[in-house]
């Protein structure tokens, strides 16, 4: 990989903490704005982070979100401890959701989260062990449109 890779920041996300949902996304966005990163890239990173954050809050006990800036990309990594995903292919489908009513009432749970993350990523990987947790990594190229 060309350029230097360094961890910019790591945030802790508490499961079921809906009140602060989106705070990590806002923080990462603010940090990225301080760097010389194109607006459209910042927007993608903010959306990816937001969705990853909501997933941890909605479905996991706790998790972390880390972000890296390399010379040609921004990477968001989300790891959580929790029930994990039984069927990843299904979960990636737009509209497929395992949200309960309490999640829906808050405006989430439309089944778009992972699909959104994938949509805005240039590289995307996800893995999960049901009963243990989930890991996802989204890389967004700085020279993407």
């Amino acid at each position, binding site marked *: 990989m060309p350029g230097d890779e360094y961890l910019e920041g790591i945030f802790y996300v508490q499961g079921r903490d*809906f*009140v*602060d*949902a*989106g*705070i990590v*996304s*806002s923080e990462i*966005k603010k940090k990225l704005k301080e760097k010389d990163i194109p*607006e*459209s890239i910042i*927007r*993608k990173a*903010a*959306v990816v*982070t*937001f*969705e990853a954050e*909501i997933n941890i809050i909605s479905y996991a006990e706790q998790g972390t979100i880390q972000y890296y800036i390399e010379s040609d990309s921004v990477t968001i990594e989300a790891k959580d401890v929790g029930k994990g995903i039984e069927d990843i292919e299904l979960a990636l489908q737009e509209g497929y959701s395992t949200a309960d009513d309490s999640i829906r009432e*808050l*405006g*989430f*749970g*439309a*089944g*778009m*989260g992972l*699909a*959104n993350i*994938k*949509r*805005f*990523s*240039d590289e*995307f990987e996800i893995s999960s062990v049901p009963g243990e947790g989930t890991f996802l990594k989204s890389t967004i190229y700085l020279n*993407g*449109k």
Partner: protein
Amino acid sequence: MTDIVSYVNHSLSQNGVEIVTLAQIKDLLEAEVIVGEDKLDLEIKTAFGADLMSDVLAFARSGCLLITGLSNPQAVRTAYALDIAAISVCRGKALTDKFIDIAKELGIPILWTQYIMFEACGRLYREGLTGCVREILVGDNTSARR
């Protein structure tokens, strides 16, 4: 945010499309300005009505007006993530101090109207606002992945 919004609105107005200001929207919706009295000259061309934040993240366009019944901080953060121009909370939904504080902190104007979403969207559509087409410049990778 303002550069992209100005660019988009400028190219729209070049094509003879009507631009509506936040001040006009406020009047149309008989809304109160809760945050952003100094931003009423903001030009709005597109609108997105939704209660589901994931939909906003997937389909809304930066620079649009978000019309929603959600009055929680996540709605403001969603708008911030996407560079949405302003939020109009409808249904006369009660706003919390936290909601207002975050809107102020993130610089997002908030209008507050008693109208239900159906009425609010209906009126604004009539005035000339259009719905959001997914931003081409963000890049859609889904077809490549499938």
